[in-house]
């Protein structure tokens, strides 16, 4: 099931093709491919080559600073880190249950982020591939190309993201890297004016989200040969689910299923996550490889994110999204769907759910309440888990008696999907690169597979055609045989 194409037996005799960098935003990613003289693929790896070090350098810092500091890990979904850290520190300050206002405000912030991040990923980064084709004309395979060919779709994508950013701004104080959540609650509620401003647009947002689900469903179902098989691999999957088994991005318990949908564990209190999850280090990447302990590292890896969440939950609490979930499950035929491109479909179902939840919350007067903080008996250790846009996110801290962080462990969504992304690009490399000369279009197939999982690695590709991509084909002596570059 795994490790095929991870390590070639005789790499010295093979040619190396590198995609370096794959992305230019959240850490640099690199893909290396080793080919023999017949262009047969022997090794494919997605490397994360940038070392961040947050777990180390927040040691020695006061705990109340952490939710604001660690969100700098990411510029796309900082709210996830902000809230996961805050949830862990809620445990530290003894806030076992937040006030209704604080929990709803955090939920609003988080679902706003889910909306904006999913919109960004689908419309800005991926829709050019999906609408024009993976190896279509590179000069128009970007959001500007989408805006020219499908102006209404592009406009809705931009406005959906803008609305999500506004939700974040009114709850966190800023669109990016705000300070709304604090250990034990929130530092601000909504004003009537802020709420009413959002209420003006939310009905459009729900409708546009429904349209987005219809769009990706149509794209997917029109070409099942491609969409159901591109980069496919089978794996376990894991996510938070709400206490009643519903889809829940903010809080719940951990549930994992195997590739046939059979439960591996369920109702797991995430304070005990390290009893079931282990992280493996491999020498060629700074990103660890998590796996489920009970199954072992060879077969215990899993995928997280929309495809896992939508198939892991019992139902979705909002009506439009639930209807779409059922259609998706029916399309999959009653067994788990493993195709990476189905991430896009489930991602849009989640965006619709986020829009519906925001609509419900905006009608709840608790958002205007100033009852925002609780505290209790101080603890020395806490874990916070949240479903970030691209998957399950773990924050784990220990704090000493002087309020200083002594230990931090973060397992981010990208890490959880590490093996899964590697498997997807290996499948694509075997299927599309085999025996062919490297072209930009073929390389984009590799990136399409990565992009399906995680825009933190796939972003920038369509940034107005300026993705810094350089590919070199070297012979055994390291001489450049062929190269392509894009800058």
């Amino acid at each position, binding site marked *: 099931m795994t490790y095929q194409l991870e390590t070639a037996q005789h790499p010295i005799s093979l040619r190396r093709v590198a995609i370096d960098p794959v992305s230019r935003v959240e850490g640099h990613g690199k893909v290396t491919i080793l080919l023999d003289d017949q262009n047969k693929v022997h090794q494919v790896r997605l490397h994360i080559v940038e070392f961040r070090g947050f777990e180390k350098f927040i040691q020695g810092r*006061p705990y109340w600073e952490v*939710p604001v500091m660690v969100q700098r890990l990411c510029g796309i979904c900082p709210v996830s880190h902000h809230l996961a850290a805050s949830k862990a520190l809620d445990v530290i300050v003894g806030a076992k249950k937040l006030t209704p206002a604080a929990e709803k405000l955090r939920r609003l912030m988080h679902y706003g982020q889910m909306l904006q991040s999913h919109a960004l990923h689908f419309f800005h980064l991926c829709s050019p591939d999906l609408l024009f084709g993976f190896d279509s004309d590179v000069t128009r395979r970007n959001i500007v190309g989408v805006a020219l060919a499908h102006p209404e779709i592009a406009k809705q994508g931009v406005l959906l993201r803008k609305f999500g950013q506004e939700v974040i701004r009114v709850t966190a*104080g800023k669109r990016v*890297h705000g300070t709304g959540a*604090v250990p034990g609650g929130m530092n601000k509620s909504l004003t009537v004016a802020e709420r009413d401003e959002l209420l003006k647009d939310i009905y459009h947002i729900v409708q546009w989200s429904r349209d987005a689900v219809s769009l990706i469903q149509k794209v997917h179902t029109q070409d099942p040969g491609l969409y159901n098989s591109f980069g496919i691999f089978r794996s376990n999957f894991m996510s938070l689910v709400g206490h009643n088994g519903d889809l829940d991005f903010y809080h719940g318990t951990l549930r994992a299923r195997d590739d046939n949908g059979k439960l591996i564990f369920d109702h797991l209190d995430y304070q005990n996550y390290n009893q079931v999850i282990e992280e493996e280090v491999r020498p060629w990447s700074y990103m660890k490889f998590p796996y489920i302990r009970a199954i072992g590292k060879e077969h215990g890896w899993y995928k997280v994110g929309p495809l896992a969440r939508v198939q892991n939950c019992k139902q979705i609490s909002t009506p439009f999204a639930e209807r779409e979930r059922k259609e998706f499950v029916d399309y999959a035929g009653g067994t788990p769907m493993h195709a990476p491109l189905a991430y896009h479909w489930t991602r849009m179902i989640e965006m619709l759910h986020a829009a519906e939840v925001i609509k419900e919350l905006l009608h709840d007067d608790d958002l205007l309440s100033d009852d925002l903080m609780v505290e209790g008996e101080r603890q020395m250790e806490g874990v916070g888990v949240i479903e970030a846009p691209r998957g399950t996110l773990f924050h784990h801290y220990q704090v000493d008696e002087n309020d*200083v962080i002594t230990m931090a462990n973060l397992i981010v969504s990208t890490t959880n999907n590490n093996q899964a992304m590697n498997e997807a690009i290996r499948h694509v490399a075997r299927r599309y690169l085999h025996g062919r000369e490297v072209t930009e279009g073929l390389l984009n197939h590799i990136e399409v597979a990565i992009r399906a999982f995680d825009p933190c690695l796939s972003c920038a590709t369509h940034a107005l055609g300026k993705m810094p991509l350089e590919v070199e084909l070297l012979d055994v002596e390291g001489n450049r045989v062929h190269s392509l570059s894009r800058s």
Partner: protein
Amino acid sequence: MSLTFTLDGKTIPFEDGQTIIQAAGKAGVFIPHLCYHPEFKPHGSCKLCTVKVNGRHTASCTMRAMPGMVVESDTEEINAERRALTQMLFVEGNHFCPSCEKSGNCQLQATAYHLGMMSPHYDHFFPNRPVDASHPEVLLDFNRCILCSLCVRASRDVDGKNVFALSGRGIKTHLIVNARSGQLGDTDFALADKAAQVCPVGVILRKRQGFAVPIGERKYDKAPIAETVTEGK
């Protein structure tokens, strides 16, 4: 007949014994400063309040106003010098505004904005300065110390405790705590002390407050420093 001098062409009245910055503040004219505080004797160390008096540089917090003085303050040349001094303060310590809980309430940050500082310009020193979290109510984050000595003066002159001192010389000057262990927790320092209230940056912090005040409601979110500081407050 009242006493006056001119500051950037404006006539500023003053009383005998007042410094230039005191008279300017009373007249509602802002002169950038960090180590000056109207409740304490001037220290004259940060040099941000430097002005030109009759063509010569001097610290406006230590120079007494005299009748007929011609003082220049808000000029391109002097503000460029102030900006360079501010940049040096930023690189000497570890001032990471994005995750600093004093952001929005910090006089150094507000002054940098006032002076149009767009980057640190100089290479960062990145000194290694662990925090002192030993006190139950107050955290000391030495990373942000600009050696203004306001806590030294407040503890000595108001609180009568002598908890803080500046030690070392030149570039090695640093803030120390007057305890055998060097830890704030081993002193009689209290949250109610004047020294706990005067830090213009994010060194002396009340514990567990952090980001309780949201963005947009902090002191310099509401008005830039030139509009909030008069008479050095």
